[in-house]
């Protein structure tokens, strides 16, 4: 008996699922992503960097050409030229990162630390116990929200606000990635940032020790020192920038205070001579304050919103004929130590 052909009804395609024509941009991006996987960690590029390079350096080479006419080989050769211009990052090997550099990081500086201090080519994880835990991710494509760091920081913030005497920090511990060998390969390690509450870590800190052959020890020590100095230089730069910003705000507030003093004397005095003197003093302080404000905004030490806020205040004080308003000081209420148990929110899949 002949086999009967089954009536196979063709699958209906859902509306709107028509295959799109491939664009040159998408083709290049796909090939670039594949090439990025095979490149050494020091030269790997994040998705935003790849998009930037495609726009500025790769697409102009194939302007006006059809994606079907551009071969993979041509795209590969342009991509390899791009990689030659990429400056290799330092410190992409967790084994070269000094433990003192990743020790004792304040919980509120965690995001800043990951973005600015730690090399953006290493694997890390944040383990804050009951406050949350992230997966092991690479800092190359770090996102504050998507990687789960924000949720942990918010949970820690709530805890710290309820108990002002608690000391919360995170310490980085070199650990082995799951199912990887302890053979010194940089890809096999990650830094586990463990939460420390009042100088007691939430779990045992046992860093992984790599056996280095005697012949390589000198060279590795040299590389370690170089990476450590580069990271600490970034730390110092950040501290300087913070201090500059704090000083700019402090100076602006001081100038406002000086203006308020002079203004109140100017309004209160009935002696016309003194009034003139106070008025001149007021204008000189106003000129100084404005000069400092303009310098601060030019150097990036204050934001535009802060500039406008201070500018309006000093302007109102300098040209007003009324007494400056006194700030109402609210009485501080003692905070209650409420320890709320909160389970970390599950991320939606």
């Amino acid at each position, binding site marked *: 008996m002949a086999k009967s052909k089954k009536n196979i009804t063709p699958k209906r395609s859902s509306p709107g699922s028509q295959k799109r024509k491939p664009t040159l941009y998408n083709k290049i991006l796909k090939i670039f992503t594949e090439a990025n996987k095979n490149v050494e960690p020091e030269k790997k590029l994040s998705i935003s960097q790849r998009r930037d390079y495609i726009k500025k350096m790769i697409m102009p080479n194939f302007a006006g050409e059809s994606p079907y006419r551009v071969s993979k080989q041509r795209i590969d050769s342009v991509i390899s030229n791009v990689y030659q211009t990429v400056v290799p990052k330092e410190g992409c090997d967790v084994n070269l990162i*000094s*433990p003192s550099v990743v020790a004792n990081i304040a919980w509120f500086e965690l995001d800043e630390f990951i973005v600015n201090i730690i090399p953006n080519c290493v694997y890390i994880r944040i383990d804050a116990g009951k406050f949350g835990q992230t997966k092991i991710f690479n800092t190359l494509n770090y996102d504050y929200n998507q990687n789960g760091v924000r949720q942990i920081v918010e949970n820690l913030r709530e805890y710290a606000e309820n108990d002002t005497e608690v000391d919360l920090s995170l310490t980085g511990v070199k650990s082995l990635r799951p199912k990887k060998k302890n053979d010194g390969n940089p890809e096999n390690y990650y830094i586990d940032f463990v939460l420390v509450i009042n*100088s007691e870590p939430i779990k045992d800190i046992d860093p992984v020790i790599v056996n280095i052959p005697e012949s390589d020890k000198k060279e590795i020590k040299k590389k370690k020192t170089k990476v450590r*100095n580069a990271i600490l230089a970034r730390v110092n730069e950040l501290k300087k920038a913070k201090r500059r910003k704090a000083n700019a705000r402090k100076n602006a507030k001081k100038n406002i205070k000086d203006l308020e003093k002079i203004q109140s004397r100017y309004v209160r005095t009935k002696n016309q001579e003194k009034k003139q003197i106070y008025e001149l003093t007021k204008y000189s302080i106003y000129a100084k304050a404005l000069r400092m404000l303009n310098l601060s905004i030019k150097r990036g030490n204050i934001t535009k919103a802060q500039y406008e806020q201070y500018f309006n205040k000093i302007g109102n004080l300098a040209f007003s004929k009324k007494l400056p308003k006194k700030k109402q000081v609210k009485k501080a209420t003692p905070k209650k130590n409420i320890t709320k148990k909160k389970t970390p929110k599950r991320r939606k899949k």
Partner: protein
Amino acid sequence: MSIKTYKREGYLIKSKDFYTKKKLNYILDLIQKNGGEAYIRYGNFSNEIIWEGKSYSFPAKGKRKHFSRGIFLFGMVRRDARLFCARKKTIRVPKKYPANIYSYKEKVLKGNFTGTDVSHAYWRIAYNLGVISKRTYEAGMQDDFKSVRLAALSTLGKGKDYKIIRSGKETEESIKIGGNDKMDNIYKLIRYTCYRYMNEMKRLLKSDFIGYRTDCIYYIDSPENRKIIREYLKSKDLQFVQLIKTRKAIHEHDFSESS
């Protein structure tokens, strides 16, 4: 055992941070677990750990409000001292006279004695010699700053000694960071100048001299002796305080080094 010396702390320290006292043991624990070498120093006011380029400072004892307030003087004194060193090619240290002298052989002396205490002797001498500027001098004149003034002058040119930590354990080996002989000679210049003045007053008082201890001189009370001492100290542009209540007995141990 030779001690390794580092001229500048910048060679070992790339970043500094301040922590609470409780963190000291925690950092030592981390050093032990991670291995490697670190350096530790226990000071009167702060303890310090240097670990892989980072310096961790911790307060040593309870808060000392007046000392924490006058810390800016250290920087001012050091800056002035550096300028002083730059102006002088060499700093000649005068002859060293004893810091304390008791001239009588009898152990206890009874009679009418008096004493003159030179006010803030080292600080004033430092200003008179040009080691510190007028601004620094006036800034340090508050009563609260007495210990800070002395500390700022005495630590000039002094290096810091650190013990080496290996595999998490403190060893007996140490290293030295900093230290400047020329700056160290400045403090010697100030001290020896003070002792020289005391010795000159001793010579002027002749047999009426009883003893002196660093910056306070004791002698037999008489208007002539008081005048000699007053005029001498004024000629050296030093301020002083006359002891009003004359002592009826002076013992040898009042002038010994240890008292």
